[in-house]
């Protein structure tokens, strides 16, 4: 019975994160002012971010790998969690669900994502995914006294479980084919046994596609997204629209690019299909939405479609573009949600797009910021959204999918319409009702960060791009 502790350096972030989460859970019992809990958790996350440095390598028998790729995504997750927590502080008080578990769960979900990002083994991947998923289910239903919230949780849960069943089935078939669950090993095995053409293998690929497609809300596995986004607490919507999506892309990238590298031609075909469908449905259906959260849900579906281009390109550049896009998307999307949250006040939902009429009259600043985010989501320079899209398109065209990019740009032109509609409401209509803003330090900070980030990346993207390239150096 010889047992030596495996090298723990690579997992330090996860370990620290876990301890932070646990501490938060405990502190929650003694600390009454939940703001402090929130701030503590942020501090903790920052600490974790610090530990990212020097944590690299594989461990636990190659089950866990911490490389640039995962690190990059973990950064996205941290950005995501910090911003979401900041916008939550006031919001959950307004919603009267000011419980500490909230932060704990958010942290747990983040841990799940981190694990997904650096999973080198399907088992770890699956568990990470479940960890994330379960926490998110709970968070989605966190406003227990609100039927919509519970409903969102239910739908999310049912379909999530359903999709993870597909995932498992796929995993089991792969396992049967290769006798292993380690991503590297699978790749190697497929090559050596010449499984490339085998329909059984492809079947498993497809099943995984279903599961991941669900996580990134790609059509036709997107149907949960609008309802859940609408029903869930806005802060959680913001959190969900970035975190799980990014995590999904992380695993998609790693599994498909590493494990199934040898069958790229086959899955890229499917993904092209999905991405077109996704962009189409996302952009088109968003046109006829009257609830802004729902509209952003569809827009996030559409963005998943764009980001898929990066995977389809199936090369490092593609991944880099996808990663940068996720980072950018995190900023601009959460920024937009921050504005939405400001409109939520006691007894006023502020989710209908008509609530935005004439916003510029009484709250010019908020309107201006929303304008920036909307244009960024549309992809108009000099905002980050443009850079992100440009990079994706570059990658796709470079991989020879020009026609696909043409489709994409057409759709993004269509998307301009519904983003513009918000701007139009804010600036070119007279306010119907006096809308009050619930401002708070947290939201302020978030808006500051996101705006600066969006504009800065828009004008000086080189840092982000450089980082993305660097992250993929050893991939």
């Amino acid at each position, binding site marked *: 019975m010889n047992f030596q502790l495996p090298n723990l350096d690579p997992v330090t972030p996860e370990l620290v994160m876990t301890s932070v989460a646990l501490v938060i859970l405990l502190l929650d019992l003694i600390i009454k002012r939940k703001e402090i809990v929130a701030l503590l958790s942020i501090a903790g996350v920052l600490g974790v971010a610090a530990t990212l440095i020097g944590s690299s390598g594989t461990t636990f028998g190659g089950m866990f790998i911490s490389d640039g790729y995962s690190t990059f995504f973990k950064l996205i997750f941290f950005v995501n969690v910090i911003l979401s927590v900041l916008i939550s502080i006031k919001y959950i008080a307004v919603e009267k669900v000011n419980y500490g578990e909230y932060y704990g769960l958010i942290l747990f979900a983040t841990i799940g994502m981190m694990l997904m990002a650096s999973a080198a083994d399907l088992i770890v991947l699956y568990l990470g995914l479940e960890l994330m998923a379960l926490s998110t289910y709970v968070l989605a239903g966190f406003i227990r006294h609100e039927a919509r919230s519970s409903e969102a949780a239910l*739908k999310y849960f049912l379909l999530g479980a*359903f999709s993870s069943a597909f995932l498992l089935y796929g995993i089991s078939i792969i396992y049967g084919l290769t006798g292993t669950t380690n991503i590297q090993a699978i790749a190697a095995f497929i090559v050596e046994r010449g499984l490339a053409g085998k329909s059984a293998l*492809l*079947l498993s690929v497809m099943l995984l596609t279903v599961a991941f497609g669900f996580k990134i809300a790609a059509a036709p*596995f997107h*149907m*949960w997204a609008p309802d859940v986004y609408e029903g869930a607490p806005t802060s959680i919507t913001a959190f969900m629209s970035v975190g799980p999506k990014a995590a999904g892309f992380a695993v998609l990238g790693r599994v498909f690019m590493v494990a199934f590298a040898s069958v790229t031609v086959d899955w890229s075909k*499917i993904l092209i299909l999905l991405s077109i469908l996704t962009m189409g449905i996302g952009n088109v*259906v968003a046109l006829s939405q009257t609830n802004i959260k729902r509209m952003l849900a569809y827009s996030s579906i559409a963005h998943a479609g764009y980001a898929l281009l990066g995977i389809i390109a199936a090369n490092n550049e593609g991944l880099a573009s996808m990663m940068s896009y996720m980072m950018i998307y995190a900023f601009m999307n959460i920024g937009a949600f921050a504005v939405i949250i400001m409109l939520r006040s006691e007894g006023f939902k502020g989710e209908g797009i008509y609530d935005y009429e004439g916003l510029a009259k009484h709250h010019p600043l908020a309107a201006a910021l929303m304008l920036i985010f909307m244009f960024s989501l549309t992809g108009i320079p000099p905002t980050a959204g443009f850079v992100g899209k440009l990079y994706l398109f570059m990658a796709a065209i470079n991989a020879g999918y020009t026609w696909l990019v043409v489709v994409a740009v057409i759709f993004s032109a269509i998307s301009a319409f519904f983003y513009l509609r918000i701007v139009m409401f804010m600036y070119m209509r007279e306010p119907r009702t006096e809308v009050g803003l619930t401002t708070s330090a947290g939201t302020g900070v978030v808006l500051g960060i996101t705006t600066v980030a969006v504009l800065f990346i828009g004008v000086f993207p080189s840092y982000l791009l450089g980082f993305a390239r660097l992250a993929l150096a050893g991939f």
Partner: protein
Amino acid sequence: MKLYLLIPFLPLAAFIINILLGKELLRDKAHWPSCLGIIGSFIISVITLFQVINGKTINEDLYTWMISGNFKVSVGFLIDQLTAVMLFVVTGVGSLIFIYSIGYMHGDKGYYRFFAYLSLFVFFMLMLVTANNFIQLYLGWEGVGLCSYFLIGFWYEKKSAADSGKKAFIVNRFGDFGFALGIFMIFLTFGTVHYEPVFSNVGNFAGQTLNFLGIEVNLITLIALLLFCGAVGKSAQMPLHVWLPDAMEGPTPVSALIHAATMVTAGVFMVARTNAIFNLSPVAMGVVAIVGASTSLFAATIACVQNDIKRIIAYSTLSHLGMMFLACGVGAYAAGVFHLYTHAFFKALLFLGAGSVIHAVHHNDIQRMGGLRKFMPVTYATMLLAALSAGGIPGLAGFFSKDEIVWSAFASGTDIGRLVWVIVTCVAFFTPFYSFRMIYLTFHRKFRGTHHEEHHLHESPSVMTIPLMLLAVGAVAGGWVGIPSVLGGGAYFAHFLEPVVGHPEFHGTHAQELGIMSLSTTIAVTGLVLATIFYLLKTSIPVRLARNFNVFYLILFNKYFVDELYNYTIVKPTMWVARRFLVGFTDAKIIEGIVNGVPRLIGIFSSGLRRIQTGLAHHYGIFMAAGAFFIILYMLLWR
């Protein structure tokens, strides 16, 4: 500082002064700068004229205007015999009319504006005649058109005035359209647009043909005809003559200066100027002759039945312009220019006289005039002289010029020459007829206006009558510089112009010349006599004629319905296309239909797809399963 530069630029200066200061400072003294300006340039023109007579012609560039690739134009001046004559006419007649206007326009609220425009016009006119290249010619060409637009529509509150101005400009644009194309062709052919190289090289291109819009045509003929389009527009020849009668809406001095003496003759000037080109194209020459002749006859016939005193003169102008072209058409450019020169005097005189009449009776209808002779003797006398001169009564200016035209038409020896000779002989009958019809109805018999009007009848002030007299002198004696040799004269005028326009070769004896001369003279006299019978002695005849030949009368009275023709074939259809078809249909329905239709379509899609989102977890599940099924199937089938 070259002296001749002052000729055009003095009036320009006058214009600028007037337009800037006229409104506040000068007001009713606005005539000073203009009159000084034009008189100044008149003096200089006379000086230049004598210089030219002494054989000193000028052709030099002032500065380079446009340069683009091998296309290079400069603002330059060419002053030769032809130009000198034109300068003399323009500035001379111009000065008189300016002075006349002082009285005529007295007290008008647009006084300063009027003189400003007049000066501007003179400037452009002088630029036109002194140009040494086609572009500058074109500049003057458009410029005078613009000023005529301003001056016709001078009383812009009157819709008719504004309309006429617009009409004049647009009709002219049609001519200029051809003119511009002609210039393009010249550039393409010769690589330059300056007279001198063009005229010297034109010979090398004789007989060349090219494919123009699918038609194989003679190069020179094409150029000539395109240029002639411009002339037709500017000189109001058929079929672009419609604007000139309407132009009479303008103040009378304007009609005298622009629509009789100077601007309308620009076409003749241009043809004479480019005679080098025309000479090489018999076809073009023929066209010019025919157009001129037909216009001449056409206008003359109309003039016989009009009642608006100014319109009568206007149609007579058309008729005379036709003759000038006719002359050019048979190669007798000198004759054409000569007639231009004499015509300037007697026609300006007629107009000014008419102006003075209108000044007295405040309307244009000769049927409501009559017996004015005793109220305004000077006007009567001068106008009588003018009418005689116009009618080609021997000894007067008009006689010599017209006679030269008739003779050269006959003597040119070509069939066309003979044809136009016949026509011009007919015209020789009509001219005195309508002139004297007008004289009689206006000045003889008893006054047919209201008593109130009669009470105000008076002779015009001397500032108006003096110019009349001076012009009368011109109308009488102006022609003596061109007395044909057969009458023992020196025909100085023709010889003077020879270096520029050459000399047509005549096939005919002195005997024939005398015969022709006497023939046309007798015909003219017949016309005069007939007019006397109709409108002085047996005034019932014309009425009866009108009744019996109702159809002819109506056709003539309505100017052959040309205006209506254009209105229904060009104006109305265009407007219909613009309003109904383009605005209403292509833009609104087709293009906008697509532009707005696509979003609407997407919208429909959107709401359709939206309905899929039932909110039922089951359906979502089904969709996921279906998706899974389809991608697996896809994978199975197309792997």
